[in-house]
């Protein structure tokens, strides 16, 4: 969809001028004009794996839910279990259609005020998600607000992320923050959410604040020499860490069960899509998402066919790279479930040639999260 938009119709994040000044290669993504890379993707990727890098992720959506039945409502639309999860914690999961396909994958923040939640959703899905949430909130005593346009967000990621947010930005409490938790601070007179989360497989923080505050944080991080990183390496990093991207590994056609993300669906409670997902879990699925490693430097790309050694087509690649951190050609692929077991020999057809490989774990890279 976004490919069809003229540049004039594309949205800009609050950091757009900074990206242009840094001479980033810009490209449309999810309806926004976004930086793909500032330096080379490899340099940016390695900065995050070895030191620290930062991303403008202001395009992400922030939807707030509050009211006496906020918890009850969020738990109804969200696959994961939010009852009993404490203020200051963050939980990953999905919103599903009744048929089990995915509306979006998202983070749910349980705020410090009772019955207050923040839902952080994918940029491409903000309007769709908000409409879905509003529609399903009818009948629950709560209000929902889409505040996406007034929030900026910077992700600071890498083994030196803590040192950076503490040392450069003076966010001292970040030191004690556990993985998937957050705290509230104030920055330039506005709320600042410091969240120990990310999408790279490394330790890191996501900082949500006002548009003005976001620009100020960015400038301070740049002045301190932090490597700006674009969406190019955001994808190579999340891919190596085995993290799905909505649209590639999750979609209305690809359920969490198919994607191997069933651990984020809790069947002891009711939620939209539960019956369909339970049926899939019980055996009613045709395809499963797997990792495949091939014995060559050729690169499996999205859409390339997956074949058995006998040449029968049994699946399709969803994301693939020559992994920067592992120096191996690996991909995620949706394959007939009969071929999804580890070590199953499968080949990828890349243009005119067929490259043999085998099924491997989807987490190609050993992640380094804060314990």
């Amino acid at each position, binding site marked *: 969809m976004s490919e069809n938009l003229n540049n004039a119709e594309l949205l800009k994040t609050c950091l757009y001028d900074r990206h242009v000044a840094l001479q980033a290669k810009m490209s449309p993504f999810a309806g926004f004009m976004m930086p*793909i890379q500032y330096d*080379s*993707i490899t340099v940016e990727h390695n900065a995050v794996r070895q030191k620290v890098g930062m991303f403008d992720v202001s395009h992400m959506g922030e939807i707030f839910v509050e009211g006496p039945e906020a918890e009850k409502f969020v738990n109804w639309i969200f696959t994961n279990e939010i009852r009993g999860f404490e203020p200051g914690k963050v939980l990953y999961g999905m919103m599903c259609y009744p048929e089990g396909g995915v509306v979006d994958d998202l983070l749910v923040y349980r705020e410090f005020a009772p019955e207050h939640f923040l839902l952080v959703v994918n940029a491409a899905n903000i309007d769709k998600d908000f409409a879905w949430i509003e529609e399903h909130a009818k009948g629950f005593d709560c209000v929902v607000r889409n505040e996406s346009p007034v929030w900026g967000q910077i992700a600071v990621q890498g083994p030196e992320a803590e040192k950076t947010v503490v040392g450069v930005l003076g966010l001292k409490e970040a030191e004690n923050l556990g993985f998937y938790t957050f705290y509230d601070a104030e920055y330039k007179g506005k709320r600042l959410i410091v969240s120990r989360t990310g999408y790279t497989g490394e330790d890191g923080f996501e900082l949500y604040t006002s548009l003005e505050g976001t620009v100020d944080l960015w400038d301070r991080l740049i002045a301190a020499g932090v490597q700006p990183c674009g969406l*190019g390496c955001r994808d*190579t990093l999340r891919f190596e860490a085995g993290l799905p991207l909505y649209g590639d590994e999750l979609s209305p056609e690809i359920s969490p069960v198919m994607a191997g993300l069933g651990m984020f669906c809790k069947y002891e409670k009711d939620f939209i899509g539960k019956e369909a997902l339970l049926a899939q879990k019980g055996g009613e699925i045709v395809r499963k998402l797997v990792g495949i490693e091939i014995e060559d430097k*050729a*690169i499996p*790309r999205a859409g390339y066919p997956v074949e058995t050694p006998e040449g029968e087509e049994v699946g399709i690649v969803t994301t693939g790279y*020559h992994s920067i951190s592992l120096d191996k050609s690996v991909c995620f692929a949706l394959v007939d479930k009969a071929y999804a077991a580890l070590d199953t020999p499968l080949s990828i057809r*890349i243009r005119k040639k067929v490259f043999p490989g085998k099924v491997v774990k989807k987490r190609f890279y050993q992640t380094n999260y804060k314990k």
Partner: protein
Amino acid sequence: MSKIIEGLKYSESHEWVKVEGGVAVVGVTDFAQKEMGDITYVDMPDVDDEVTAGEEFGALESVKAASDLISPVSGKVVEVNEALDDTPELVNEDAFENWIIKVEMSDPSELDALMDAAAYKEHIGE
């Protein structure tokens, strides 16, 4: 500014051709390698494969994307640059020095359809 060499022939899809008798030495232009970014893999045909003008004969792969290589001439592949198997980044270092294939041309008149350096410079808007 991208480097362009006088005396070579250029295709719209950013391949260059250096004519050595009946053999066409084919590579990609400096402009193309810059657009691609870090090249991580060069998919090349085998010696003795037939290639056809205007048709794909291989691909360049960067981290992010694959880009087809389009043959500017027809004929038989007589040599491939095997150094690119292990060090594809040579194309980034010098796209004109590091040719990709050599083709024994079956119809040298196909060269007339290609651009000269001045026309190519205009084609890429530099």
